[in-house]
């Protein structure tokens, strides 16, 4: 079953001389249990595509299905996008974006709580253990290393048991070793949690870890 399917996604910004075609007729599928790489140079539309697939920005045209349910039809939302994000999506950012006044455990627990987990703190502890950062669960983000912060951020993305994880250049702020470790972690998450993971990356050294690769150039997708 496709965790997510998009057909004919287009997105434009501006008009007249300032018109930018960020996405042009993009179609793709994310299958459960696979890790998908989205490659492309800066300005090719990767972030716009992640925003559209993450139901943060509506495309101008095109359709999006989530677990075979139509959620965006011709650029219009046909379901509550906030609710869909809460139930089905997990996000990992280029920077960890942890909430600074909450501990690692609280950062994960709040996402679990929003996602409707009955025992959010239990779920948070479980995920932090799974990602080998349970020893820092009471630490504030500012006291964690870059790698630890990113692992807590991944734990937060998994807190609501998402069927789709969207990661926008999650290793950009990490060195080679830690970057590869994070990519391996995504692979593990995809296979063990049966989630579809889409990773936007520039790092060609880790491409062997992906099941599927897409390349975006000037808004056009090549599979």
């Amino acid at each position, binding site marked *: 079953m496709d965790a997510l399917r998009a057909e004919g996604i287009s997105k434009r910004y501006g008009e007249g001389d300032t018109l930018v075609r960020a996405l042009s007729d993009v179609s793709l599928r994310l299958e459960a249990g696979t890790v998908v790489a989205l490659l492309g140079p800066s300005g090719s539309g990767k972030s716009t595509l992640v925003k559209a697939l993450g139901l943060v920005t509506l495309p101008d045209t095109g359709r999006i299905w989530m677990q075979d349910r139509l959620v965006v039809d011709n650029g219009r939302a046909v379901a509550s996008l906030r609710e869909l994000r809460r139930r089905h999506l997990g996000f990992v*950012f280029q920077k960890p974006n942890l909430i600074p006044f909450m501990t690692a455990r609280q950062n994960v627990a709040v996402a679990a709580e929003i996602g409707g987990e009955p025992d959010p703190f239990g779920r948070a502890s479980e995920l932090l253990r799974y990602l080998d950062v349970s020893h820092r669960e009471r630490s504030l983000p500012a006291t964690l290393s870059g790698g630890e912060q990113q692992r807590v951020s991944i734990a937060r993305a998994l807190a609501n048991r998402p069927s789709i994880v969207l990661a926008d250049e999650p290793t950009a702020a990490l060195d080679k070793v830690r970057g590869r470790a994070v990519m391996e972690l995504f692979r593990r998450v995809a296979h063990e949690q049966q989630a579809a993971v889409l990773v936007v990356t520039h790092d060609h050294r880790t491409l062997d870890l992906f099941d599927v690769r897409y390349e975006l150039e000037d808004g056009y997708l090549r599979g």
Partner: protein
Amino acid sequence: MNLALLEMRRHIGRFVGTSVGVALLFTVVLAMAGIYGGLVDDATVLVRALRTDLWVVQKSTRGPFADISRLDPTLDQRVAGVSGVRVARAFTFQVIERPHGPRSLRFALVGLSWTEDRGRNLPIVSGRSLAQAHGELVADASLGLPIGSIVHLATEDFTIVGLTRQLLASSGDPVVFATTSDAQLITEDLPTDAVRTERERFAARLLLSDVGRTQPVLEDLVRDPRWKPPALASAPFSAILVNVADPSRLSDVRAAISRWPDVVAYSSGEEERFLLDGVVEKPRKQLLLFSIILVFTSSVLISALIYMMTLSKSHDIAVLKLIGAPVTRIAGMVLQQAWLIGIVGYAIAVAVGSQAFPHFPRRVVLTPWTIGGVGVLVLVVSTLASILGVIHALRIDPGRALEA
């Protein structure tokens, strides 16, 4: 998980600093409300303390506090003869200032009708009521004279025999009780210059009259330094306080007295209303307007603080929205922080006020109703103040979380 509390706990220094700033404003709001309460209480406490059913005052006036009332010195006997009157007491009232050692004493002197009224109904907290017709005073503790103090007034010595607490005139001056004859003795006592001036005026008036011109001995008499000018033959009373034998006959007694051409009778409630509507009306309105301005200022200040706090965590709010946090949770966080600042600020204000207000020159009355009422106002102000912050939080694009 309460996000508002979590953030406050992590930034406790900033939160306490903000709350203290807000608390100072609320302390002033509370002081205004308390001074307002004090003004109203001071204006009416004497009327209540005298526990009378009717106030008989000069016709076309509103009584001894709101207006000058001069009554025939025999009126108390006339009123006592009215059917249904249990007791009629003469009453005098005048605010005076007299030197006392190195300082000056300013007080409202109330004359009580000896022997009918010895001040036994007064809220005396220490000492006793008047026990003799001359030379004794019951004073409010705020005058600063302990029991046994001797006060030299009108060439006589008076002893403080009893103390009341918070028994002030509408002007805020402490009330001192004496017998009516002592009160008249004190108030009629004039400084030397005033006596000389009065003597000259009296002699001048005398010389303008036939009697004065035809009988020079009278002028010699008037100019004799041993002679004290009779400002009046017998000093008038300010009011007659009437207690009826049967409360159900109050209106009959009132109607009977009100038929007389020279006086009018008011109930204690009416007398209180005259004080509030007349004597303290403008200060009350002034305080009320000042309080409104302060509440508005507090509202704007909290609003700006909450807006800045929300602005500083825009990115965190974007992250929360991205992961699907409901609108109520985001708005709730901002609102709860406004409430927390308001409630903690108000608690500090109440604590500071309860320590500081007793040292204010005017009485600040903080009743549970005042504290509760201002507390509710603080909640309303905090809620309104959070609106800008909530609007900003709700407008934050969750996509901001994805931006590097």
